[in-house]
């Protein structure tokens, strides 16, 4: 039985179609990566799942119940962190915990927040404001906040694309570890096929927009724990990377060929200015290209 299901979901903004007939089915406990070009509609897709946007047609269901709006059962890590800048790390997370677990007593909620701060290795920065944190640390706070709500599914919208390569690798390993610890169902949006393959059980390319849709899903049969260095020489990994990349590039190529443009050439022929005309001669209208049938010059 699948936990999350999208059926023929389409979404357009003011006449321009962003997503078209998207179908997706994710089982409980699965880690799915969706990879696509920038501007293809990845954030739109995740917002539809989160309930922040409403699909124009088609259905989104979680546990067979239609998604009608946002809720803490779908923890989302936004592309731009979306931490509240006037709250400290602890306060940002406890805002979520206090809201979701309002019936717990204060000590339990506090311990819960501390637990997730520890999970993302931020205990030393617990009382800092987001502006005092590096990009990678902010992203961890955002992950901790989403996890602390104990959601059924974790939605990650390009969580690492704003980070430098080294931080990125570290955080990839951390996401992988946290996932092993919590056994959460995860949807990871990314623009890096390598990242998707390294982390996920299944990787699905999103074709280039407009009118993007999900391609075939590629199952990643690489045993865990995965070794970042060894994986680069893994034949299956290389094959997957080639397949996904080829699919994505082809989808972009298809888009290009469908663009047709009608060019209108000027309907006028150049005049020979070296021919001197006498004043008495009447000016003739310019020669039209379409009137020229054939011109033969006898030498």
């Amino acid at each position, binding site marked *: 039985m699948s936990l999350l299901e999208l059926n023929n979901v389409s979404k357009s903004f003011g006449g321009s179609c962003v997503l078209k007939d998207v179908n997706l089915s994710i089982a409980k406990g699965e880690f799915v990566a969706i990879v696509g070009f920038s501007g293809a509609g990845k954030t739109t897709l995740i917002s539809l799942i*989160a309930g*922040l946007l409403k699909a124009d047609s088609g259905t989104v269901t979680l546990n067979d119940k239609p998604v009608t*709006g*946002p*809720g*803490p059962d*779908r*923890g*989302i890590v*936004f592309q*731009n962190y*979306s931490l*509240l*800048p*006037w709250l400290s790390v602890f306060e940002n997370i406890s*805002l*979520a915990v206090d*809201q*979701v677990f309002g019936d717990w007593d204060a000590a339990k909620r506090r311990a819960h927040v501390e637990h997730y701060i520890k999970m993302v290795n931020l205990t030393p920065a617990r009382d800092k*404001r*987001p*502006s005092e944190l590096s990009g990678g640390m902010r992203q961890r706070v955002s992950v901790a906040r989403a996890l602390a*709500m104990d959601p059924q599914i974790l939605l990650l919208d390009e969580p690492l694309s704003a980070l430098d390569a080294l931080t990125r690798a570290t955080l990839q390993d951390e996401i992988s570890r946290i996932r092993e610890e919590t056994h959460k169902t995860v949807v990871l949006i990314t623009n890096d096929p390598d990242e998707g393959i390294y982390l996920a059980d299944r990787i699905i390319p999103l074709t280039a927009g407009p009118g993007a849709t999900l391609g075939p899903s590629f199952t990643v049969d690489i045993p865990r724990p995965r070794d970042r260095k060894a994986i680069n020489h893994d034949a299956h990994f290389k094959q997957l990377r080639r397949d996904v990349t080829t699919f994505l590039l082809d989808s972009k190529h298809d888009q290009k060929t469908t663009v047709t443009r009608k060019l209108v050439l000027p309907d006028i022929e150049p005049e020979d200015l070296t021919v001197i005309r006498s004043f008495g001669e009447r000016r003739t209208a310019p020669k039209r290209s379409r009137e020229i049938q054939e011109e033969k010059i006898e030498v």
Partner: protein
Amino acid sequence: MKSFKCDWLILPLLGALIVILGWHVLAGKKVVTKDAEGNVASEERKGAIPALPNVVETWESSKPYIVEPFAKRGELDQGILRFTWLSLVLVAKGYLIALVIGTPLGFMIGLSKFFTKMTDPIIQVLRPVSPLAWLPLGMVLFLDAGRNASELAALFTIAVCSMWPTVLNTAVGVRAIPQDYLNVAKVLKLSRFKTLTKVMIPATLPYMFTGFRLSLGIAWLVIVAAEMLTGRPGVGGFLWQQYNALIYEQIILCILTIGIVGFILDRLMSVVERRFKTA
């Protein structure tokens, strides 16, 4: 120009010195002519602007008000800081009224397009109206208040004139709340009240404080006009009274006091404002 050591102190002093010198040169001077026996024959003022008191005269006659800043010799003869205090109290009351009305109004305008369209023309029309025009209306409104009428009218004028920056800045701040913050509130399913107190108000605070600072500036600007017209004791009332009594020296004292107090208030508010600039 190259900056040198202490230029932050020396250059402003130099500027002030030039202005004071210019004032002194333009100002009038008392010239006493005496006859052969040494009796005063005539006294007259000479200079480019004969009626304008010069620096020395201004200092001499302002001295009692500065040296004993808290003295109270009569209702309209008090030390300059005592007058300032009276004015500040009045401004504080009017300003608080402006904030209490202006902030929620700004929030409503920022939140609802409907409300914006409804109030925008009214605000645009009322905003440029001078305090001198509001005060008589205030007098009429509180005609029945008896002894308190002039104070209420002054408060009304201060509140109405100084409210607009708070209203407009709050509205802009509410509209500028990033969608991301609101998305966080939505995902957490915060109630309307919690969204307001935990997300929207903190996100708007920096804008609100910019509005508060501008409003305070206007409130202080209005106080003089309000005191002049109502004849209440205070810096502005004192200024007007001395002018009517043909004692011109204290006009400059009052102008300087008003300016310095306004400057200090603005500095204080911008310190507070900066504390709320988050992100």
